[in-house]
C-alpha cells in the first residue's frame, strides 16, 4: 500500500513539529527524533556536568535514582515531575556553585517543558500553555544570564522547541536561525537546519528550503558533534575538537539517514520548483544512498505462491511496499518527473540515468506502475520490456518481461503478448545462458520454471489452435472454390511449424515433465499437419512407446495408443505419397534423410510401418484397432515378401499356435490343435489369404491348402452377425472367391507335382483327383484331369485312361489337349489290344487333324516369312501325323481282323494322300494284299496297276516304294506270264506261234520293266521268268504239233528245223539263267536263283547237274 504524500502543509504547527521528525526517525530507525535527542542531550549534561548533583537528587527521590528513569518514562505523572522539580529547587537553594546552579535551572526548565508536554498529552491545555510559558521564560532567563553563554546552542534549541510546541513557529524559526548563525559548529546544526528547511518548505519558500537542504547535504562531518553512547564530547567551550570528532563521530547509519532525509527534502524542493532534472538527480542520489543500505532479504523457499514469490523476488520495489517510505516517495517523485515525457524519451533517459544502478528495477517498476495506473498500457508494457532489454542479465529481467506480458494481456494486446511470451520462452529456456547463469539462485529458477512452463504450453496451444482455425478457413474456401486444391498454405504451415517449435522447446526444457507424453503427441500432431511426416512419426512413436529419454509409464498421457495408431497412419500417408511418385519437399524431409521415391525407399518405410504396427499390437493388446493394424501389417509384409514374419503376424492375429501349421503333419487335414480364433471377417480374410500365399511361397503347400480352405469358408459363410460384416464378405466374395479357389487348387496341384517329382505317380494321381473333387470350379481342374491322364498313361493304367479320357473330353470339349488325350486313349486301347477301338480312334484322330488343318489359315494366308514357315511346319506335322494315324487305323483294323475296316482305312489313306510317296505306295500295296485275301483279284490287280502308274519307271522313289512298284510290276508280269503259259503252239501253227510269240514278247517286256526297278528279289525273278519263258518257248517249239502228212525224212528235216528255231531261245534261256548264277556268285539270294540252278541243271547238265555227295 502506498501512503499519502508528506503532510508538509499541515494546518497544525504543533503537529508538524512532531510529525516530521517522527517520520524521519521511522525511516532511520532511531525512535522519536525530537524527544530522544532532547532527552539525550539533557541526560548527557547531567552525567557530565552535574553528576554529583544528580546523584544527590537521586538519593532524595526514593523511587527515581537517576534521570534516565525519568527520561525513559517521560514523566508519566505530574506529581512525579513536580516532586522532581521540588527536589531541584531545594537543591538550587542549597548549592553555591554557579555552574551547578545553572545546571539545575536548565533541569528545571526542561522539567517545565516536559510538564507542559504531559499536560498537553493529558488534555490539560491551559495548564500546558502555562507550563510552556514557564519553560520559555526559564530559557529566556537562562539565555539572558551569564550562565546562558554556555550551552547557548542547547538553550536556543530548547527555546525554539518550546516556541514550536506553543505554536509560535516564527519565534521558533528565529531561535533556530540564531542558533545556526551563531553556532555553525553546533551539534544541533544539521537538525536545526533541517527544521529551518522544513519551515521554509511549509511556507512554500521552496528555493529557501532547497538552499537549507542543500547545505545539510553538503554538510561535512568534521564540525559535527559526534554522538556515541549518549555522550557529548566537547571541549570546555562547548566546541568539539578534531580528535574527539574523529574518535567519536556519529555512526554512518545515523548520518546517512539524516543526510538522506535532507536529500529527500532537497529533491522535493526542486520538484516543487519544476526543476525535474535536479529533482531526479537528488532523488537518484538519495536512492543511491538507500540502495547501499537496503539489502532486500532473499527468501529462497521454492514452494511459494506466485504472489509471494514475486513479492520476495522484488522485495523493495515500490510496487510491493518495501517499507522504506523515503524510497517510496523518491521513486514516486522520479516517476512523476517523467510523467509528461514521451515514453521513448523517458526510456532513453532512464537508460542514461538508472540502467546501471543497482536499484534500476525500482525505478522502472515504479514508472511502469504509474503508466499502468494512468492506463498507458502500451507505455507500461514498453517500459517493463525496456528494463528487460537494458539489463538482460539482471535477475529481475524475467519479472519485468512477465510484467510486460501481463500488461499487454490486460490491455488485450494479444499479438504483442504472444510475441513477448515467445521472447520470454526463448530467452529464459533452461538451455539458454541466462537460465544456466541463474542456477545458484533458486528462486529465480523457480520463478522461471513456473512461468516458462506455462508460456511454453500456451505458445504451443495458441499456435496449434491458430493453425487449426486457419486450416478450417482454408477448407471452407476450398469448398467454395474447388480450384483451391491445397488445404495447406504457408500461413497454416507456419503456424503448425511454430506450434511444433514450442512443443519441442517444452520438451527440451522439461524432459521429466509429467505431461511429456501429451506434449509429444501435440508435437507430432502439429508436425503431421505441417507435412513434416517423418518427424511426426518419430514424435508419435515417442509418445506411444517412449524414447529420447521419455518413458510412457511415467507420463500422464491417457491414450498412448492414439499416438501409436497415429504414427501408423502417418506411415501410411508417407507411403501413399511415395506410391504416387510425389517427390520429397522440405516439409516432408529431415536433414538427415530426405524422402525419395522408389521402391527400395518405399520398402524401407514399409518396413518401419511394420515395426511400428507390431509395437502397437504388442503394447495395446486391448485396443479395438489392433486387429486392423495387424491385418494391414500382413499386407505390408506380403508386399515385402517377408513370408516368415508374415506367418508369425498372421498366426498371432488368427490365434494359431506357432508352428502348428508348419509341423511335420503333411496331411491336408487340419491338425488336432488347429483352432483359429473367431475374428471379424475383414481381419480374418486378409490374414488367411496372405498367410496362405506366404506358405505357398515357402512351398509348404499342405499348410497353404489349409489356409486357403479357411479363407474360402470365411467367404462362403452367409450368416455373419452384422450387416457390415456380411456386406464385406459378399463384396469380397465377388472378387476373391474364384481366385482363392484357384489358389487352393494350386496348393493341391503343387502337392501333386511334388509327389510326381518324388516318383510317387500314384500319389500324384490321388492329389489331382482330390483337386478335381474339392475344387471343381478351379481353373486348374482341366490341368489336373489332364495330368491325371498323363500319369495314368505313364503308369500304364490303361483301363483308367480309357475311362478318364472320355470324361476329360466331355468336361472340356474344346480344350486344346483333347487331341492329345485322344492319342493317349488310342495308346491305351492299343495297349489293351482293343484294336477295333484303336482303329476307329486313330481314324477319328486323323479326321480331326485334317479338320484342324483346314481350319488353321494356311501358309498362303501368312503375311510374314516366319509365320509362313511356322504355319507350314505345323501343317506338315499335322498332316504327317494324320497320315500316320490313318496307317495306324488300317493296321489296327488288320489286327482286329476286320479286313473291310482295314480296306476302308487304306482307301482313306489313298484318298487323303497329297503326294506320291512311300505311304501311298504302301497303301496300295496293303490294299492289293487285302483284296487278295478276300479273293478280289480284280481289285487286287487294279491296285498293282495303280501302283505301276503312279510314277514313271525311272522316277526317284524310296527303296520301299521301289520294292512295291517292282512287286506290282512283277505281279502284273505274272499275269502275262500265266497267260503266255496257257498259249499252245498248235494248228494253225503260224497263228498260234505268233500269239505265243506276242505273249512272250509282252511278258518279257513286263519282266524287263520289272528288272528296271533294280529290286534284287524281283530282278532275279524277272530274269528267271524270262529264262523260263525262253526255255518254255524253245520247248513249246520242239513240242509243237507236227504238220500232218510229213514223211520220216521230212519229219526229220522239220524237227531239225524246229531245233534250229528252238535253239536260240534255249540259248537265251541258258544265258538268262546264268545271269542269275552270276548274281548268286555276287551273293544274291532268291528262290529264282535256286530255280535258275535247277533249270540249268536240266538245260546244261554237264556243267550244272553236279550234286554233292551225301553220306
Amino acid at each position, binding site marked *: 500500500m502506498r501512503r499519502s504524500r508528506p503532510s508538509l502543509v499541515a494546518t497544525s504547527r504543533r503537529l508538524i513539529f512532531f510529525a516530521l521528525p517522527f517520520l524521519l526517525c521511522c525511516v532511520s530507525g532511531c525512535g522519536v527524533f525530537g524527544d530522544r535527542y532532547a532527552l539525550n542531550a539533557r541526560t548527557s549534561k547531567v552525567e557530565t556536568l552535574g553528576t554529583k548533583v544528580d546523584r544527590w537528587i537521586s538519593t532524595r527521590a526514593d523511587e527515581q535514582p537517576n534521570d534516565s528513569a525519568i527520561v525513559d518514562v517521560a514523566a508519566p505523572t505530574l506529581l512525579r515531575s513536580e516532586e522532581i522539580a521540588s527536589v531541584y529547587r531545594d537543591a538550587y537553594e542549597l548549592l553555591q556553585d554557579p555552574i551547578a546552579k545553572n545546571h539545575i535551572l536548565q533541569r528545571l526548565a526542561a522539567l517545565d517543558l516536559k510538564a507542559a508536554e504531559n499536560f498537553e498529552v493529558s488534555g490539560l491545555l491551559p495548564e500546558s500553555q502555562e507550563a510552556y510559558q514557564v519553560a520559555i521564560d526559564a530559557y529566556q532567563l537562562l539565555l539572558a544570564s551569564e550562565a546562558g553563554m554556555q550551552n547557548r546552542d542547547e538553550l536556543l534549541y530548547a527555546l525554539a522547541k518550546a516556541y514550536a510546541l506553543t505554536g509560535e513557529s516564527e519565534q521558533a524559526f528565529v531561535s533556530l536561525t540564531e542558533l545556526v548563525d551563531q553556532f555553525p559548529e553546533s551539534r544541533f546544526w544539521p537538525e536545526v537546519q533541517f527544521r529551518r528547511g522544513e519551515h521554509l518548505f511549509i511556507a512554500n519558500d521552496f528555493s529557501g528550503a532547497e538552499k537549507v537542504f542543500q547545505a545539510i547535504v553538503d554538510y561535512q562531518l568534521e564540525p559535527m558533534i559526534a554522538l556515541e553512547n549518549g555522550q557529548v564530547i566537547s571541549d570546555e567551550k562547548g566546541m568539539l575538537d578534531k580528535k574527539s570528532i574523529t574518535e567519536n563521530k556519529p555512526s554512518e547509519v545515523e548520518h546517512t539517514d539524516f543526510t538522506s532525509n535532507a536529500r529527500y527534502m532537497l529533491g522535493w524542493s526542486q520538484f516543487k520548483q519544476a526543476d525535474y532534472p535536479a529533482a531526479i538527480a537528488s532523488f537518484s542520489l538519495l536512492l543511491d544512498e538507500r540502495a547501499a543500505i537496503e539489502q532486500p532479504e532473499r527468501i529462497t523457499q521454492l514452494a511459494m505462491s506466485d504472489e509471494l514469490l514475486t513479492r520476495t523476488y522484488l522485495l523493495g520495489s515500490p510496487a510491493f511496499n518495501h517499507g522504506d517510505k523515503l524510497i517510496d516517495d523518491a521513486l514516486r517523485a522520479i516517476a512523476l518527473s517523467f510523467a509528461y515525457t514521451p515514453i521513448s524519451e523517458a526510456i532513453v533517459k532512464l537508460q542514461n540515468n538508472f540502467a546501471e544502478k543497482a536499484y534500476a528495477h525500482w525505478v522502472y517498476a515504479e514508472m511502469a506502475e504509474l503508466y499502468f495506473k494512468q492506463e498507458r498500457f502500451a507505455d507500461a508494457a514498453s517500459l517493463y520490456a525496456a528494463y528487460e532489454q537494458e539489463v538482460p542479465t539482471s535477475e529481475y529481467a524475467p519479472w519485468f518481461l512477465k510484467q510486460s506480458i501481463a500488461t499487454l494481456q490486460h490491455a488485450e494486446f494479444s499479438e504483442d503478448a504472444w510475441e513477448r511470451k515467445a521472447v520470454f520462452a526463448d530467452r529464459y529456456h533452461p538451455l539458454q545462458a541466462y537460465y544456466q547463469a541463474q542456477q545458484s539462485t533458486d528462486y529465480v529458477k523457480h520463478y522461471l520454471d513456473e512461468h516458462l512452463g506455462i508460456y511454453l504450453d500456451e505458445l504451443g496451444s495458441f499456435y496449434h489452435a491458430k493453425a487449426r482455425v486457419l486450416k478450417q478457413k482454408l477448407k471452407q474456401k476450398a469448398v467454395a472454390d474447388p480450384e483451391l486444391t491445397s488445404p495447406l498454405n504457408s500461413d497454416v504451415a507456419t503456424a503448425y511449424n511454430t506450434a511444433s517449435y514450442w512443443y519441442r522447446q517444452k520438451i527440451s526444457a522439461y524432459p521429466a515433465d509429467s505431461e511429456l507424453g501429451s506434449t509429444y503427441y501435440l508435437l507430432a500432431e502439429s508436425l503431421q499437419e505441417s507435412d513434416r511426416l517423418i518427424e511426426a512419426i518419430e514424435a508419435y512413436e515417442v509418445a506411444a512407446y517412449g524414447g529420447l529419454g521419455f518413458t510412457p509409464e511415467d507420463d500422464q498421457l491417457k491414450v498412448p495408443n492414439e499416438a501409436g495408431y497415429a504414427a501408423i497412419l502417418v506411415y501410411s500417408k508417407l507411403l501413399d505419397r511415395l506410391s504416387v511418385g510425389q517427390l520429397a519437399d522440405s516439409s516432408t524431409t529431415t536433414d538427415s534423410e530426405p524422402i525419395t521415391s522408389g521402391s527400395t525407399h518405399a520398402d524401407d518405410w514399409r518396413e518401419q510401418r511394420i515395426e511400428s504396427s507390431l509395437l502397437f499390437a504388442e503394447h495395446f493388446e486391448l485396443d479395438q484397432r489392433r486387429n486392423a493394424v495387424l491385418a494391414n501389417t500382413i499386407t505390408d509384409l506380403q508386399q515385402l515378401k517377408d513370408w516368415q514374419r508374415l506367418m508369425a503376424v498372421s498366426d498371432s492375429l488368427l490365434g494359431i499356435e506357432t508352428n502348428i501349421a508348419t509341423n511335420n503333419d503333411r496331411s491336408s487335414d487340419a491338425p488336432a490343435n488347429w483352432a483359429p480364433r473367431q475374428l471379424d471377417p475383414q481381419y480374418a480374410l486378409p490374414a488367411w489369404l496372405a498367410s496362405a500365399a506366404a506358405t505357398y511361397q515357402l512351398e509348404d503347400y499342405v499348410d497353404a491348402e489349409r489356409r486357403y480352405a479357411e479363407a474360402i469358408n470365411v467367404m462362403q459363410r452367409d450368416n455373419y452377425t452384422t450387416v457390415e460384416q456380411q456386406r464385406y464378405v459378399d463384396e469380397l466374395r465377388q472378387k476373391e472367391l474364384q481366385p482363392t479357389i484357384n489358389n487352393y487348387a494350386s496348393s493341391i496341384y503343387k502337392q501333386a507335382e511334388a509327389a510326381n517329382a518324388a516318383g510317387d505317380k500314384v500319389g500324384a494321381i490321388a492329389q489331382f483327383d482330390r483337386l478335381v473333387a474339392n475344387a471343381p470350379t478351379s481353373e486348374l481342374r482341366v490341368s489336373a484331369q489332364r495330368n491325371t491322364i498323363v500319369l495314368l498313361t505313364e503308369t500304364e493304367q490303361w483301363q483308367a485312361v480309357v475311362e478318364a479320357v472320355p470324361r476329360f473330353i466331355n468336361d472340356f470339349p474344346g480344350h486344346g489337349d483333347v487331341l492329345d488325350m485322344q492319342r493317349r486313349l488310342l495308346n491305351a486301347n492299343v495297349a489293351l489290344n482293343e484294336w477295333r477301338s484303336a482303329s476307329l480312334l486313330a481314324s477319328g484322330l486323323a479326321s480331326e487333324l485334317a479338320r484342324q488343318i483346314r481350319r488353321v489359315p494356311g501358309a498362303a494366308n501368312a503375311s510374314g516369312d516366319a509365320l509362313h514357315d511356322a504355319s507350314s511346319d505345323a501343317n506338315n506335322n499335322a498332316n504327317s501325323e494324320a497320315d500316320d494315324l490313318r496307317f495306324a487305323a488300317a493296321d489296327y483294323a488288320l489286327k482286329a481282323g476286320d479286313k473291310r475296316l482295314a480296306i476302308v482305312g487304306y482307301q482313306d489313306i489313298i484318298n487323303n494322300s497329297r503326294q506320291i510317296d512311300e505311304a501311298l505306295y504302301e497303301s496300295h500295296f496293303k490294299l492289293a494284299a487285302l483284296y487278295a485275301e478276300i479273293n478280289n483279284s480284280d481289285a487286287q490287280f487294279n491296285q498293282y496297276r495303280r501302283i505301276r502308274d503312279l510314277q514313271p519307271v525311272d522316277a526317284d522313289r524310296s527303296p520301299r516304294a521301289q520294292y512295291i512298284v517292282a512287286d506290282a510290276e512283277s505281279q502284273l508280269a505274272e499275269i502275262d506270264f500265266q497267260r503266255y503259259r496257257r498259249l499252245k503252239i498248235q494248228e494253225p501253227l503260224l497263228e498260234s506261234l505268233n500269239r505265243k510269240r506276242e505273249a512272250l514278247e509282252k511278258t518279257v517286256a513286263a519282266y524287263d520293266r520289272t528288272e528296271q526297278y533294280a529290286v534284287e528279289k524281283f530282278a532275279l525273278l524277272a530274269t528267271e521268268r524270262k529264262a523260263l519263258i525262253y526255255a518254255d518257248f524253245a520247248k513249246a517249239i520242239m513240242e509243237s504239233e507236227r504238220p500232218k502228212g510229213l514223211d520220216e525224212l521230212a519229219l526229220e528235216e522239220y524237227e531239225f528245223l524246229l531245233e534250229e528255231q528252238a535253239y536260240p531261245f534255249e540259248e537265251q534261256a541258258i544265258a538268262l539263267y546264268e545271269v542269275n*548264277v552270276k548274281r548268286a*556268285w*555276287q*551273293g544274291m539270294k532268291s528262290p529264282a536263283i535256286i530255280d535258275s540252278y535247277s533249270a540249268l541243271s536240266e538245260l546244261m547238265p554237264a556243267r550244272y547237274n*553236279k*550234286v*554233292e*555227295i*551225301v*553220306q
Partner: protein
Amino acid sequence: MHRTVVNSKVIRNSKLMRSGYRHKSSRLLAAVLFAALASCAQIGSNGTVDAEFKDNAKIRSMLSDAKRAEDAGDIELAKSIYEAMMDSGAKASRSLNHYAIFLRKQLEIDQAENVYLRALKYSPRDATTHYNLGILYELYRGDFSKAKQHYESYQANAEEADPAVKNWIVDLERRIASGESGGES
C-alpha cells in the same frame, strides 16, 4: 557212293524238336536224345575211313534230326539243329558236309564254304568234302581255280579217280583259260 538228295523223315510236327533247338536251354536235352541214337562209327561214303574224327552219338543224333527237319521242309528247325550241332563240336566230315549242303541250298554260300573248310581242317584228305567244296566253288562262287583244286584233291584222295570229275577239271581248265570267271576270291 550215293549221289542223292537228303531225304529225311518228316519231323515237322515234333514240338519237342522245334522248341528244343530254338531255345538253348533245351538243346542239351535234345543233344542227349540224339546221342543215344547216334551210331558209334562212321564209314566214309567213298570207302575211306575217317579214323581221326568221329562225332559222338549226340552230334550224330543232331545230324539225324537236322536232316529230318530239312526233309520235312522245316528249314528253320533244321538250321537251329545244325547250329547246335556245330556248337557241340561237330568235326566229322559227314556231319559237316550235311550242314554245308544244307547251307548251300539256302544259298548261304559263305557259311557253307566255312563249314567245308572246317571239315577239311579236321579231315584234310576227305575226298567227299573236296568234291562238294569243288562244286560249291564252281557253281555257286564261280571260283574255278579253287573248284579245280578241290576236284583234283578229290581225285587224289578218292579210292579211285572219277572220270566225270576228270572232265569237270578239263572244262574248268578251258573256262579258266578262256578268261571266264565268276566270283574268285
